[in-house]
């Protein structure tokens, strides 16, 4: 495969002859070489769906690269920019498949489940520490109830307890990823300000749960 500079990639992909086809084939190989690393946390090459996913993501990436060629600003290697696009497409697809069939009600239903061991149920913690933890959580919980809007609380439940991807949580809440991130950022800032006025340092709360 020919090694190209950023400028050469752009020129070849904008050409109207065999040069463009060759560049597209080279780019296809670049994407397919990179994808197994990107997917390694999610899928192994032995799994039956791996090949189909790689083909699908590669095709979609090539289309998107051609469509967005004019937006490439040259701040990175062209191939890094292409890998970034492939990663976004691949992970979006994997998340969509994972969460597609779950409704919002089903996802928040399990919220009543008892907390995992290691918190209040920590058998190594003495009764005084346990009581202190319980009091502190009650205080913080009250502050959260008072400071956060219903929507912020709902987002927190989805992302915190269910470990749901922000993109899918955004879809469930009928918003988008940017808006949901901002919603949570605002919630964090509000909470931090309020904790400060109540003289509660997050670090002190967390330390309480680390001591035995």
């Amino acid at each position: 495969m020919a090694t190209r500079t950023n400028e050469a990639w752009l020129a070849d992909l904008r050409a109207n002859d065999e040069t463009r086809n060759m560049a597209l084939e080279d780019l296809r190989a670049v994407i397919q070489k990179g994808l197994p690393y990107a997917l390694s946390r999610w899928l192994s090459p032995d799994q039956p769906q791996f090949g189909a996913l790689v083909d699908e993501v590669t095709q979609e990436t090539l289309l998107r690269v051609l469509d967005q060629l004019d937006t490439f600003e040259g701040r990175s290697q062209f191939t890094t920019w292409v890998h970034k696009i492939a990663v976004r497409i691949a992970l979006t697809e994997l998340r969509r498949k994972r969460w597609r069939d779950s409704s919002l009600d089903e996802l928040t239903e399990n919220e009543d489940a008892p907390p995992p061991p290691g918190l209040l149920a920590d058998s190594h913690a003495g009764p005084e520490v346990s009581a202190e933890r319980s009091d502190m959580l009650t205080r913080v919980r009250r502050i959260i109830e008072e400071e956060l809007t219903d929507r912020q609380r709902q987002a927190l439940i989805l992302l915190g307890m269910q470990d749901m991807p922000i993109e899918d949580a955004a879809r469930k809440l009928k918003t988008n990823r940017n808006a949901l991130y901002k919603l949570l950022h605002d919630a964090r800032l509000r909470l931090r300000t309020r904790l400060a006025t109540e003289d509660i340092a997050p670090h002190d709360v967390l330390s309480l749960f680390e001591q035995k």
Partner: protein
Amino acid sequence: MNLRAFIKKIQNIINPPKEISNETILGFLRVLETLEAEEISCDELYEKLDQYVEREVDKKDAALLMPLVREHLDTCTDCCEEYEALLHIIQENEPK
């Protein structure tokens, strides 16, 4: 009490709001200490992600040079997953 508040109260009796778990509360507190008032959105992060990853692979202090990117990655699981996946590709597939 206005009508909206009244309806909300009835709704809360019929279908009580879900509680936020203790784990979630602690997870939320963990990011408060380093939180900056300034922020960038997921789209803005995406724009800078390739540049950030290359700086990291080149052993430049990417987090120092682009602190808002680092903060976003610390608080957004989806963007962080994409960052890790891209970093993995560039580190393993195209060593510099």
